[in-house]
């Protein structure tokens, strides 16, 4: 017999409804809790505690046992995305695509939170210079940067003047190589030759250690904090790395 497409879950008596809930896996429970206040109360009334969770949201939702990570990749529904971000602000890592935000304001709201690592896919014009300056993250990464080298240049100048105090690393991929020389325009810096630069190691807040690549361009903030820009140029694209040498980022006293 063909199974009817729907089952009136909330018409079950309370006891049976709770019995069904006990069989649902954490993924389903989480999704159910997002649908209404009643659903949320039903799920939370069981008082189950998650010791560690990681949530990756794309077209589907998976909850895994690694803490403090939230991935929001595809735009299912702006309202849904906002609710997920409101309910599940991660402490450490937010992996997000700018397309999941309805507008610049929604994106900026996400950026101002104290998230250690912000990994942005499909970075588009929604991320303005103001948005970048609002960010309080230690590490910002993006796979595609669709704003101009001029904006990055302004950002570096503002950093020199004291913005983004917590920032340790900014890593962006430019697909348009025109105007890469604009990035350091007006910023006095010292070029560190490749051989010397590649001896340097950078320790990220997540304790990972990265080796610097290519030439380095060193400059300082008003308070003496040193930073290095590395440009890894390829055929049609380039990675720009901006490292800030906080004391805890220096490895083997080489900076």
């Amino acid at each position, binding site marked *: *017999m*063909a*199974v*009817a*497409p*729907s*089952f*009136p*879950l*909330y*018409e*079950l*008596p309370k*006891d*049976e409804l709770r*019995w*069904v*809930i*006990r*069989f*649902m*896996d*954490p993924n*389903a429970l989480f*999704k*159910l809790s*997002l*649908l*209404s*206040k*009643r*659903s949320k109360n039903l799920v939370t009334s*069981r008082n*189950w505690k998650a010791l560690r969770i990681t949530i990756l949201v794309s*077209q*589907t*939702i998976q909850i895994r046992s690694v803490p403090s990570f939230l991935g929001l990749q595809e735009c*299912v*529904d702006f309202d*849904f995305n906002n609710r997920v971000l409101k309910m599940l602000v991660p402490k450490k890592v937010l992996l997000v695509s700018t397309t999941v935000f309805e507008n610049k304001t929604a994106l900026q709201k996400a950026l101002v939170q104290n998230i250690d690592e912000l990994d942005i896919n499909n970075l588009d014009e929604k991320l303005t210079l103001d948005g970048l300056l609002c960010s309080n993250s230690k590490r910002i990464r993006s796979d595609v940067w669709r704003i101009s080298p001029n904006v990055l240049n302004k950002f570096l100048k503002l950093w020199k003047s004291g913005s983004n105090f917590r920032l340790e690393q900014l890593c962006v991929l430019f697909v348009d190589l025109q105007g890469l020389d604009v990035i350091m325009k007006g910023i006095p810096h010292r070029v560190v030759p490749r051989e010397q630069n590649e001896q340097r190691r950078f320790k990220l807040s997540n304790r990972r250690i990265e080796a610097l690549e290519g030439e380095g361009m060193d400059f300082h903030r008003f308070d003496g904090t040193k930073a290095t820009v590395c440009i890894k140029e390829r055929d049609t694209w380039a990675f720009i790395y901006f490292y800030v040498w906080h004391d805890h980022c220096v490895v083997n006293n080489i900076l």
Partner: protein
Amino acid sequence: MSVENAPVVDVDEAAIPVEKKMYYRFESNDKKEFRVSELAIQQSETLNRLVEAMGYTSEDVENKPAIAIENIDGKTLKLVFQWCEHHKGEAIPVDDGSVPKIVEIPEFDAKLMDIDNGLLFKLIWAADYLNIVQLLNVSCKKVANMAQGKTPAQLRRVYLLPSDEEDEAAKRAAQEAQDPRAREVEEEFEERKRQGGNSFF
């Protein structure tokens, strides 16, 4: 006497009286009758207690009217008793409080529950009413499985889940439907007070 020292006696197995299996008769609310074995009934805590309390003999079972189960229709009861007969003699699971509860749906149960969701709804209700723990487990598991791989929007459709606005509207409608009666009771109470009565009832 130890086992080793016990005398060995040849036993004529045919001479041992075999207790006749007893089949109880039940009737659904739409007057369908079912004969269910005593062992199968043990799967239902409610029915097991009922027949124990009745203390029927084999003659009583045949001569007295079938035991009426007034809340369950024949179609649902047929499934319930098919399940009980298939699983008769099996241990009744004890709830260990584990979350999420792990239950496998056996092939027989999966086929039995290959039914429309309306009937599945009645089956869950009947399993709870008759306190058949394992049937409740597998039927609820089937409903929980409907959530697998669904997006929140799909879940809303599958389980017919109302939004907050719909819940609010239903609550208001229920209050409005209740108010006229509440007003009537209040008016009646006031009228009796005016007439000098001390008791409302």
